[in-house]
């Protein structure tokens, strides 16, 4: 068969070309080990002639006499050679950035020939990162890609922004594609804390992640491309001996940072101070004959409450009990992962079979995740014109979850409990709050709040996901250079959420006999891609690659849920046993996209590059009038070092200039957003009801982003130093905007195409091979990106409170009052008036919050983000250190309104910094007078805004690979041991938990940079081993 193929190739070549043909033969081996390499691509440079090496590494190819042969193989540096007989080619493992194959939409390109902006993160960098989801693993590794995890809960939503936020009300997350198929990213969580379906993907199955950043790269995805595209390619087998890889790591996780709270003595003293403060206010408000009478009344109230929260005894007076509640919210968090992969094949069939088990405990109480994943990727060459294959993965995960950050039951709200309250109530011997001896039921007002420990003892919230993701494909070679590919993909996700809150949780759940909840979601996402690919070279200097085809996606989500209460006992956790049904629902929603696309890449003489692409896209989400959109893009490149005039400049090994322009769209809105709707969710008194739910907007259309990118890629000293710099602008128009409308209309918002925003930025990536010795090697990679986001027009709208979308500002800036500290005279919270008087801000202060003007008091968007990786290797030892950081962003610590609040919220324990509260006239302090239950400076203001810049030692890996002499004696091909730390150190001025935070329950495009009892990030240390047979 191979002979037949060769014969055909030979015949074709003979008929096509007039010059002389020579048969080149030879063998390709690994330069290090000398083992033959099967499946190596052998190409004749600038010709459409290629073949693969056989199982013994041999090849035979017809090449013109003056041509050049290129040998390329994934994971090896390509080699060029003149044709000849019995050539001995050895390939060195390693990657040369310029010759690496980069996956782009519906095809691949050589890095050197790319005119757009594409970042790539390879398996080597991703492998064995001790995190749940792969997005974490790319943090700090790609320029211009901001990755922010909301907090330290497992499987939680992760914010990814590629070159800034392009939209106000539509989606801002990138478009994710796995092996050519768009995947489900819908958050299906029912408890207000988003989860990410991307956590179902095993990061160790990933061969590479390509991030399409500019329009010329992303426009092939048309209406889905505005936020960038993330292409995930999974591992494939290679012809040759079957390789068996085993991996294992185990370790432990801890919170990165913890703030300090008051101890019992500080708390009691502070609360007494707050009672006096409150008494003064009571007296001012009237109702008391003397100031002392008012203070006495507050004092007696306070002491009665302290007695209550001290479990009914006077221990609080001697500070005998001083509970560190915060530490109780965290748990010991071991983490282990097991991988077993087999890959191999022959020249007909290649396969990759992978399996993984991840067993991870969360750092926060009750949180854990177990995930099983499996993958089979197979490709078979049926004959010389047809190949077929399948990439299929399944995942099953069980995530034991906790409430969202805004619930009394979320573990970290435990910090609100008074330190004078004992963990175990001495009156009962049970957890405080578990039993009120007077009623025989859980306490209703002891401790001060519901004790989250009770949810740990008697509550569960389990999310189980079954996911099947994959595609089948066929590839037909029609004629030389022309092929047709058809892909049918399916992403099927079934989720079950089950919750039970037992009798102990009564104070929180409101039910004496338990509450239960069950929800099921079923997603079927079908996608097909059908396209032609054509490539040709003519007259030696022209090279053309073209792609054209269609793509269709249909997504359907069916959901149902039911809640009940009153169970026979806590042994019964299923709703079958619930006496009362308290909520029920089922729903279905659907969308579809249909697109036709085409792309042409033209190269002239290896110097001049031109790429054109266009996509014509339609979505069910838009009305008939504006259903179709067109998204063109163009880019050019000039490889200057190919010019003769630079041929003598030896130090400059590579120089490319490139520029691109393109339009992309954003359609990430509700499925029926253009319609005027009455919803049927309004039954009353047992009879059905409907109500207006949405105002129509038949003119609704795409939001469009016009992007330009100009870049330069430089390689010097034989590419030992390479630099890539990009400047870009992204201008979004016709923003899909939830416009705030007068509430008197019966509606609060309407989705309209209003407004413009822009992102401008600069990115650079600098890779250097600092030391390339025989034994010692040191390489560095630095990336930096500064993005400036600005809303240029919102039609006069201002959206949101605190975090706002506002003309002239970046999306989500904090817009509120500027706090001015405590009034030295009386301890009142003061605010700068900031009213505009003759174009100047009035910097006098007021204690009347309503008299102060809102001003920009912070920005949740960083000025710049960066990553800096260093890799040192000496013989088998390797040290890899990744630093990662963000700079110039602020966080609003919303929890401060309760825990750093001058006693305004009553008996919440306070952060220790509140001890600096105003006490006597003349005191100069930023902490207003403590006043029990009097809001003194706790409204939204810059009082709770903090600089959240940070620099993290993100990942440190120290590994040792056994020498080949030893492994060959052990009859294994390689073995590596490593010690790895994730988030080892965090340098920041942020005073609370972790600065990388966004409270899960409130996170939106606009609401960013909030901290509200959010779980900090995990610091992880693991030890691991990888063995290949």
């Amino acid at each position, binding site marked *: 068969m191979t002979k037949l193929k060769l014969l055909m190739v030979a015949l074709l070549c003979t008929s096509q070309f007039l010059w002389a043909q020579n048969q080149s033969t030879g063998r390709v081996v690994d330069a290090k080990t000398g083992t033959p390499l099967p499946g190596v691509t052998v190409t004749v440079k600038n010709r459409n002639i290629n073949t693969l090496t056989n199982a013994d590494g041999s090849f035979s190819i017809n090449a013109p006499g003056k041509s050049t042969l290129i040998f390329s193989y994934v994971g090896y540096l390509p080699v060029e050679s003149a044709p000849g007989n019995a050539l001995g080619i050895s390939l060195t493992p390693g990657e040369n950035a310029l010759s690496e194959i980069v996956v782009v939409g519906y095809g691949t390109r050589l890095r050197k020939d790319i005119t757009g902006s594409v970042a790539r993160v390879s398996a080597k960098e991703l492998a064995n990162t001790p995190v749940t989801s792969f997005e974490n693993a790319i943090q700090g590794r790609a320029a211009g890609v901001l990755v922010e995890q909301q907090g330290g809960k497992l499987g939680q939503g992760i914010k990814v922004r590629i070159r800034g936020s392009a939209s106000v009300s539509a989606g801002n997350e990138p478009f994710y594609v796995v092996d050519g198929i768009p995947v489900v990213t819908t958050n299906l969580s029912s408890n207000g804390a988003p989860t990410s379906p991307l956590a179902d993907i095993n990061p160790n199955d990933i061969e590479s992640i390509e991030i399409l950043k500019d329009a010329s790269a992303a426009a092939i995805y048309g209406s889905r491309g505005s936020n960038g595209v993330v292409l995930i390619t999974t591992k494939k087998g290679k012809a040759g001996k079957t390789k068996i890889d085993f991996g294992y790591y185990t370790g432990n996780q801890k919170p990165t940072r913890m703030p300090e709270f008051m101890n019992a003595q500080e708390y009691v003293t502070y609360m007494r101070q707050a009672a006096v403060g409150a008494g003064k206010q009571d007296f001012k408000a*009237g*109702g008391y004959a003397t100031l002392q009478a008012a203070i006495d009344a507050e004092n007696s109230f306070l002491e*009665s409450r302290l007695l209550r929260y001290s479990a009914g005894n006077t221990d609080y007076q001697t500070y005998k009990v001083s509970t560190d509640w915060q530490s109780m919210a965290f748990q010991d968090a071991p983490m282990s992962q097991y991988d077993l992969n087999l890959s191999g094949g022959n020249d007909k069939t290649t396969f990759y079979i992978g399996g993984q088990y991840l067993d991870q405990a969360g750092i926060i109480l009750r949180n854990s995740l177990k995930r099983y994943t499996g993958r089979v990727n197979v490709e078979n060459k049926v004959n010389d014109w047809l190949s077929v294959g399948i990439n299929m993965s399944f995942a099953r995960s069980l995530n034991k979850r906790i409430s969202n950050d805004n619930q009394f039951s979320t573990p970290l709200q435990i910090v609100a409990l008074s330190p004078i309250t004992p963990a175990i109530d001495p009156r009962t011997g049970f957890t405080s709050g578990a039993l009120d001896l007077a009623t025989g039921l859980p306490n209703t*007002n002891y401790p001060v709040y519901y004790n989250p420990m009770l949810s740990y003892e008697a509550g569960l919230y389990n999310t189980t996901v079954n996911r099947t993701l994959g595609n089948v494909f066929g590839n037909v070679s*029609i*004629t030389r250079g*022309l092929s*047709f590919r*058809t892909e049918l993909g399916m992403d099927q996700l079934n989720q079950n959420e089950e919750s039970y809150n037992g009798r102990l949780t009564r104070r929180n759940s409101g*039910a004496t006999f338990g509450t239960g909840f069950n929800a099921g979601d079923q997603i079927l996402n079908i996608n097909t891609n*059908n396209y032609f690919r054509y490539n040709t070279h003519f007259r030696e200097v022209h090279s053309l690659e073209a792609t054209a*085809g*269609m793509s*269709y996606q249909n997504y359907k989500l069916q959901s149902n849920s039911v809640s009940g209460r009153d169970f026979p006992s806590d042994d019964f956790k299923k709703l079958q046993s619930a006496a*009362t049904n*308290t909520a029920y629902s089922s729903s279905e*929603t659907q969308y*579809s996209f*249909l697109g036709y696309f085409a792309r042409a890449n033209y190269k002239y003489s290896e110097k001049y590059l031109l790429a054109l692409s266009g996509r014509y896209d*339609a*979505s*069910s989400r838009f009305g008939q009038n504006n*259903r179709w959109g067109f998204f063109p893009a163009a880019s050019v490149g000039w490889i200057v070092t190919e010019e003769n005039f630079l041929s003598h400049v030896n130090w400059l090994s590579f120089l490319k200039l490139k520029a691109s322009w393109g339009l992309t769209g954003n359609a990430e809105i509700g499925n*029926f957003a253009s*319609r*005027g*709707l*009455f*919803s*049927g*969710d*309004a039954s009353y008194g047992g*009879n*059905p*009801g*409907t*109500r*207006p739910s*949405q*105002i129509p907007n038949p003119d609704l259309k795409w939001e469009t982003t016009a992007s330009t990118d100009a870049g330069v890629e430089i390689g010097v000293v034989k590419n030992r130093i390479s630099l890539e710099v990009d400047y870009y602008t992204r201008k979004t128009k016709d923003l899909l905007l939830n416009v705030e*409308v*007068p*509430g*008197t*209309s*019966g*509606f*609060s918002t*309407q989705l309209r195409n209003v407004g413009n925003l822009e992102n401008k930025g600069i990115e650079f990536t600098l890779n250097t091979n600092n030391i390339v010795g025989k034994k010692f090697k040191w390489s560095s990679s630095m990336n930096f990106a500064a993005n400036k986001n600005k809303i240029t027009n919102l039609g006069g*709208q201002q959206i949101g*409170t605190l975090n706002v979308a506002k003309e002239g500002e970046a999306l989500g800036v904090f817009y509120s009052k500027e706090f001015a500290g405590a009034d030295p005279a009386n301890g009142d919270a003061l605010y700068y008036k900031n009213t505009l008087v003759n174009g100047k801000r009035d910097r006098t202060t007021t204690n009347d*919050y*309503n008299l102060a003007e809102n001003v920009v008091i912070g920005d949740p968007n960083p000025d710049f983000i960066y990553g800096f990786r260093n890799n040192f290797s000496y013989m088998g030892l390797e040290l890899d250190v990744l630093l990662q950081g963000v700079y110039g962003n602020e966080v609003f610590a919303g929890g401060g309104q*309760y825990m750093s609040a001058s006693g305004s*919220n*009553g008996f*919440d324990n306070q952060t220790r910094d509140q001890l600096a509260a105003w006490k006597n006239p003349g005191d100069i302090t930023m902490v207003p007078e403590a006043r029990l*239950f009097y*809001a003194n400076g706790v*409204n939204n203001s810059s009082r709770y805004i903090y600089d959240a810049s940070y620099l993290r030692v993100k990942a440190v890996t120290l590994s040792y690979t056994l020498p080949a002499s030893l492994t060959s004696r052990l009859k294994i091909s390689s073995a590596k041991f490593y010690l790895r730390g994730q988030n080892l150190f965090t340098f920041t001025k942020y005073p609370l938990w972790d600065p990388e935070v966004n409270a899960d329950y409130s996170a939106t495009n606009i609401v960013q940079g909030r901290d509200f009892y959010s779980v900090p990030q995990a610091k992880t240390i693991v030890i691991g081993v990888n063995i290949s047979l």
Partner: protein
Amino acid sequence: MKKKFIYISTAFLLIIGTACQKKLDINPTSSIDQQNALNTSSGVLTALNGAYFDVGNAWFYGGDIGLFADLLGDAGELRWNGTYQQMTQMYNKAIPKNSSFVASQWLQGYKAINDVNNVLSALSVVDATAKDRVEGEAKFIRGSVYFDLVRMYAKAWNDGNPANNPGVPLVLTPTTGITDANKVTRNKVSEVYDQVIKDLTDAEAKLPATNGFYATKYAAAAMLARVYLQKGDYTNAVQAANRVITSGKYTLTSTFAGAFPASASAQVPNTSEDVFAIQVTTTQLSNDYYTFYSPSSRGDIDIKPAHLALYETGDARKAFFTTSGGSVYTLKHNSRYANVRVIRLAEMYLIRAESNFRLVTTVGDTPLNDINKIRTRSGLPALTSAGLDLNKILMERKLELAFEGQTLHDIKRLQGNVGLLPWNSPKLIFPIPERETIANANLVQNEGY
């Protein structure tokens, strides 16, 4: 051969594309297009039912209308211990104009108004047998909502000249799209009251005497009695209250506690004295009085000794409290699935008594008899005519209706004080929500904000 491949592949691609194009038309399954919602009589009836759902939302008659007024009108009889800053601000009489609770209540009120405006716009398709009832119910809701909005967001009727004071915008037609016409201005307080009285009077005329738990003729009359009392129009108040009492449709429960039946796990039907109550079922709507007043729920509001001291010995209402962990809570709202009482018959007796007393009339009955009816139900000795004065009547009213959202409005009507704040202090009026003044520059903000 090769050409055939190209033809086949191209055809394949185009066939799939054409087939998929049809799949771009997808209809929702849990909503319908607005143009199809009100075409039929049953469509309008379900939309009317949906309006009850919206007006019964916790932000409005589901409790917050009364709850917020209780916090704003309190001076030392109850204690707010909760964590919602927005409610702390109300309790402290220091409300920022960006309060999200103030905005939510406003939005919910106008949502209900738009619901009923939709219903009223489609009366022509309603079956003749149901038409009057539908119109009456819709107008009952609209009149009631405007009355409560104007009480919360504007100066009191008796504060200066209501014909000059800005009230709330009157929107009387359904919203089908948004234009500049939706940037409405505030009508005067008197204009709003006029509309309220017009709607409720219409409603009373068109509604049937019995209508299940939905609004009846007498629910409209009862709400009118409340409106007239707020205006100090005792002549009309006494008549309206009398119409409710003499209808014979309602009777006081035999005990005070009987007016507030409790069940931990199931809905409790209206009592014989409920003139209008929001229906809370185990699956739809919630009772926010319960959420905040009940120790079985958040228990964020406890009752101070100053209030407990107001009751006479032997008053069954004095015993209608519970102590938990050293704090005292009212038992009025101790049932999770209790209907939210909007108007009870007892209030009608109190309105009739007060109005008759002031007018020196005996419409329906003497003030003494009416007051004694309320007193004896709670186990108190009957008063003699010598022992009856206006203060006694007002105290009876205060105690009977405590924690039901009346205090603030009574203080304003009677020109009393909330602590040191006079009844007409701007701090006792909600701001126009900041989101509204931003979305609609035609809205004038209230004094003091």
